[in-house]
């Protein structure tokens, strides 16, 4: 074998390695949304965008943390908690439908009004959007650290088919593969 073919072979090997690395790091047709705000309207926007992406056959991962956790609470489920957990639980909205608005809260009247107006215009409620999200395979990931801090238990989380519990390590892994990552 001549020296020239040797070096050609080596170059090809190097190139293959580089291509493999590029392929591993190439963004996939995925959207990641981090949801931290506990506002009804912002959570709604997150789900509407997630559903739009799902209609485009994009895989969607939603990561719920801190104030957004009450969006995933089921008010019918009441697990046993310690004193602090109970206190936090009582202060946080008991379900998605009880979350405040980011604007025009008007001492609690805002959400009722906006929900009525939305119904009038046939806009879907957050609950309905979540049902669609389940149907379209949108994955919800719940931050376990925030759950601990806020005293929210797995036993009070809504029944959702694509849900799991994880930390920032997994979320970073997800958005490093995704084309887009948003945090709201």
């Amino acid at each position, binding site marked *: 074998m001549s020296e020239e073919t040797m070096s050609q072979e080596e170059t090809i090997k190097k190139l293959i390695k580089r291509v493999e690395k590029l392929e591993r790091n190439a963004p996939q047709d995925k959207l990641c949304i981090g949801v931290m705000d506990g506002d009804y309207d912002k959570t709604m926007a997150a789900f*509407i965008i997630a559903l739009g992406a799902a*209609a485009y*056959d994009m895989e969607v991962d939603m990561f719920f943390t801190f104030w957004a956790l009450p969006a995933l609470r089921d008010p019918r489920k009441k697990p046993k908690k310690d004193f602090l957990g109970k206190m936090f639980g009582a202060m946080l909205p008991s379900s998605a439908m009880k979350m405040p608005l980011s604007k025009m809260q008007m001492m609690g009247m805002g959400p009722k009004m906006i929900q009525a107006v939305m119904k009038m215009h*046939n806009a*879907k409620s957050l609950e309905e959007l979540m049902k669609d999200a389940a149907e379209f395979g949108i994955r919800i990931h719940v931050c376990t650290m925030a759950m601990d801090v806020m005293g929210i238990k797995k036993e009070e989380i809504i029944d959702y088919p694509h849900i799991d519990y994880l930390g920032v390590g997994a979320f970073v892994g997800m958005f490093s593969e995704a084309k887009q990552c948003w945090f709201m």
Partner: protein
Amino acid sequence: MSEELKALSVDTEVDARGTACPGPLLEAKRAIADCPEDGIMCILSSDEGTIIDVQRWCKKMGHEYLGDYEDDGYWRVFMKKIEE
């Protein structure tokens, strides 16, 4: 334009009237699976935004956007399903 569209034989009709964004797009996404290849799908929507939504959706998904016209208080949006 609308005369040509009216003359089309529609394979799949999606009545998404009375649903707001993202309802019509989701209805279209649900129905496209049942539409035959090269079949014509017509989406009925009372939300004008559906027109450009479906145009862009077709472009990305590889379907062919055929056109739209306003009917009695709603829009009819036509597209052809192309299997990639």
